[in-house]
């Protein structure tokens, strides 16, 4: 196990969830007493879901008392139970299953903007207090008081209503989904030679309780279907695929959605036989509606996370209130898109999560805050405090990041480009927060020549500089789409699910990492 000090873990990147997912499942017995209510009722007892593990308010109060025993300003506990089940199809059969159960608790103590953190898989009061005392060492002063009673706030919104809960779906019911996709992908094109299907479902809950006496629980489902195919033509091979993800139950897999997965996986793979690398150099780039939102994630999203600005290391650190883009550019980070992979009912610090305006009419409006940065800036938290799991302290993170519709039409945008590229599908991206340089990798696209979409292109990285690129967004269409893919964002060694979206957009110039002369 490498040390967590390795700076590799500090990079900011994003990628499609691959086919090599680790596992999942556990069982109905473990979850048999789960209820579908999004949170427990009543104020006397705020522990609902986690009561099955013997967790009580008294234990939490005792833990928070230990956490504040050395003068921390603020403390919270974060309980997590996550059960993931994976099934994978290879060479025609669902012949491997994976299951992962994560159960643990993290205790955080905050003093100013300093953080102490400890965690354990042992939910006994002794183990939790030991963690709390470890975390308490970030402060060094007289004890502060912890709450003895907890209050449940107003009802949480329900942004991931489930019709078919994963705890009630047996493996036998899921198998036909994978087998059906396999059969349809093979049936769609004789050039397909290998098909991999990976399916995942997650269920479970988190509980956050803090030293202000707040307590909240949220049940957090997730599912993902990833299809990869390999095709051969005239001695050449190409691989491609498609995937869908969301906070939903088994009802997510409608006939329409499954048909789209099959169609897109085959189309995105077989088009590659006609595709070539585009030229190298600067040229106009048109981003298709949907997953092109990766541009926003890298070009502005990370740079607007308030921790980087509080630390004075983001290229956006002194730009709030200043114009950064044309007046028709509006960018949000949104927790409220029902069923989206990046949707949350509440953040991982127990704060309300809504819609945060990053750019309003071209002016930089608000950073993405967690509790620490919100106090630092004297503003309300924006519900962006998120974490991968109980082993990690929260930090400002994106949810679903997208641009609102603009005044142009897709057709006029494409017609406006004499020579450039049109980007349709992406696999990953990365950014340097301070310099602002970012990249995203285009798997499928087309050349634009004399205002028309022409030959397909593939496998090309695009590189730009965040603030410069925002200035160069000179056309925005009215066709916003939030992508349905399984995007995962990495920051400081923590991976979390996110969503992104974009209407069709023109960037007047970006560096295209192709081959040959422009």
């Amino acid at each position, binding site marked *: *196990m490498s040390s*967590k*000090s*390795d*700076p590799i873990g*500090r990079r900011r990147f994003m990628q499609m969830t691959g086919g090599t997912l680790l*596992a999942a*499942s*556990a*069982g109905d017995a*473990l979850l048999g007493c789960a209820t579908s209510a999004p949170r427990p009722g009543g104020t006397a007892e705020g522990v609902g879901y986690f009561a099955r593990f013997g967790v009580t308010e008294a234990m939490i109060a005792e833990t928070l008392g230990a956490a504040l025993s050395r003068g921390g300003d603020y403390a919270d506990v974060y309980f997590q*139970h996550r059960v993931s089940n994976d099934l994978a199809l*290879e060479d025609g*059969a*669902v*012949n*491997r*299953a994976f*299951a*992962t*159960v994560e*159960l*643990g608790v993290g205790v955080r103590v905050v003093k100013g*903007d300093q*953080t*102490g953190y*400890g965690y354990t*898989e042992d939910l006994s009061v002794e183990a939790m207090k030991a963690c709390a005392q470890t975390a308490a*060492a970030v402060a060094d002063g007289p004890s502060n008081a912890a709450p003895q009673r907890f209050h449940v706030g107003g009802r949480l919104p329900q942004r991931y209503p489930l019709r078919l809960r994963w705890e009630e779906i047996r*493996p*036998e019911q899921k*198998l036909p989904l994978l087998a059906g996709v396999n059969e349809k992908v093979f049936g769609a094109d004789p050039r397909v030679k*290998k098909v991999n299907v990976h399916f995942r479902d997650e269920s479970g809950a988190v509980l956050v309780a803090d030293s202000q006496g707040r307590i909240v629980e949220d049940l957090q489902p997730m599912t993902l279907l990833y299809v990869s195919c*390999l095709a051969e033509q005239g001695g050449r091979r190409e691989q491609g695929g498609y995937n869908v993800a969301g906070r939903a139950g088994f009802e997510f897999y409608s006939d329409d959605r499954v048909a789209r997965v099959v169609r897109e996986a085959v189309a995105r793979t077989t088009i590659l036989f006609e595709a070539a*690398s585009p030229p*190298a*150099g600067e040229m106009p780039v048109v981003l298709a509606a949907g997953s092109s939102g990766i541009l926003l994630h*890298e070009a502005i999203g990370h740079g607007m996370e308030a921790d980087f600005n509080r*630390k*004075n*290391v983001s*290229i956006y*650190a002194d730009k709030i209130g200043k114009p950064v883009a044309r007046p028709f550019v509006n960018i949000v980070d949104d927790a409220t898109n029902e069923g989206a992979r990046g949707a949350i009912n509440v953040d991982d610090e127990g704060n309300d999560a809504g819609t945060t305006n990053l750019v309003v009419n071209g002016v930089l409006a608000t950073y993405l805050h967690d509790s620490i940065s919100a106090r630092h800036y004297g503003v309300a938290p924006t519900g962006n405090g998120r974490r991968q799991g109980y082993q990690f302290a929260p930090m400002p993170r994106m949810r679903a990041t997208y641009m609102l519709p603009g005044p142009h039409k897709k057709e006029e945008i494409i017609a406006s480009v004499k020579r450039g590229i049109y980007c349709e599908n992406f*696999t990953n991206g*990365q950014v*340097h927060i301070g*310099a602002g*340089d*970012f990249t*995203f*990798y285009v798997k499928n696209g087309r050349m634009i020549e004399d205002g028309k979409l022409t030959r397909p292109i593939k*496998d*090309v*990285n695009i*590189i730009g500089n965040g603030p410069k690129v925002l200035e160069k967004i000179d056309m925005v269409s009215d066709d916003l789409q939030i992508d349905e893919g399984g995007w995962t964002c990495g920051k400081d060694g923590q991976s979390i699910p996110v969503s992104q979206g974009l209407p069709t957009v023109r960037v007047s110039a970006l*560096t295209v*990492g*192709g*081959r040959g002369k*422009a």
Partner: protein
Amino acid sequence: MSDDLLTRAAHDAVELALRKGAKEAAGGAYRAREVEVQWRDGKLERISEATTRGLGLELYVDGRYSSVSTSDLRPEAVQRFVADAVATTRAIAPDPFRALPDPALYRGQEKVDLDLVDPGYGELDAGARRRIAQELEEAARSVEGGGAILSVTTGFGDSLTESVRVHSNGFEGHRRSTDFGMSAQVSVKDPDGRRPEDWDSATGHHFRPLPPPAEVGRAAARRALGRVGSRKGESALLTMVVENRSAGRLLGQLLGPLAAASLQQKRSYLEGKLGQKVTSALLDLADDPVVPRGMGSRLFDSEGIAARRFPLFEAGVLRSYYVDNYYGRKLGMAPTTRGMSNLAWKLGDKGRDALLADVKEGIFVTGFLGGNSNATTGDFSVGVQGFRIRGGQLAEPVGEMNVSGNHLELWPRLVAVGGDPYPYSAARTPTLAFEGVQFAGV
């Protein structure tokens, strides 16, 4: 949990799996203690400390396979977890290629002390860790031009990891290692409004051989200051020299497609290339698991197979794939090992500066940004930053550029291998130079 308890937990898990209906099983138990301190701009930023544990099982049930893990170790929960996992396994399709490795592959472990545990582990207290983190920052700020520094974040961490692996057909393996790591990340002000950053770090299984923190702090600051004034260069075909610590990214795109899983799934541009010349004759590379204190060292791999050195490339000729037990059976190939341990290179005799002098004109790449490589075709396209090489020396910094090509065309153009392996990674990559690489910029 002592080693005895871990051993018992692994054996108990395997026995439980057999009792619940598995024909064969592999079980692993681990425990890790991890402590980390992060320091920023004159004060503590974060401390974290935890002892974490977990249990994993691979189940072979009625010719079917599953792999499961849990951190919920309450006895009644483990009972239910394993019973459910066996039931799920029964529901999926049989796979005739799934079985534990042939026990003959477990035998013949090297009789080497890998020396992965620092006997002094546990001597560092919270104060000592903070002093190291503080020293990293102070050194960073002390360099010439340090007035342009906007922020310095440093860190120090150490861990003790113990694991035991047990197979029902006669394997038991123990592993114990300590790890220490320090890092510094520096952001500086560029007059054009950007805030470039860079980092340096050092890691190892033993504490004492690590370089002085001040050296790491200064290196991070000099690197970050070196980024000031970075510009996008022109699109051109140029010689690319890749710094040793960054070369692992490129090398990973060459070694990834050597996995048997990629071959069997037809997703490898190196399929069918065994015995053929794939790279320039300068590439001579072996997988070497039994290096004392090596970052990837092991006596057995993640399937219990006894670890041995084997050649990957000899004078540019591909000699072996990474073949694990399962895909080896599917392909009818003898297993080598599931994945990379340490790499042993045939090194050149020149350091970075001498290589730059030889190259005269080109780009020295100090970092990659994003990008990807298509394992099926070998096509790649990745972002880069670094410095222009002019007259055999580093000249102005360049960034926001990209390199692209195909690995089957790139590696034959490897024209120099440095004598300077990066010591803090298992790949131990030296500086590498390639001719005629497509750079995209202005």
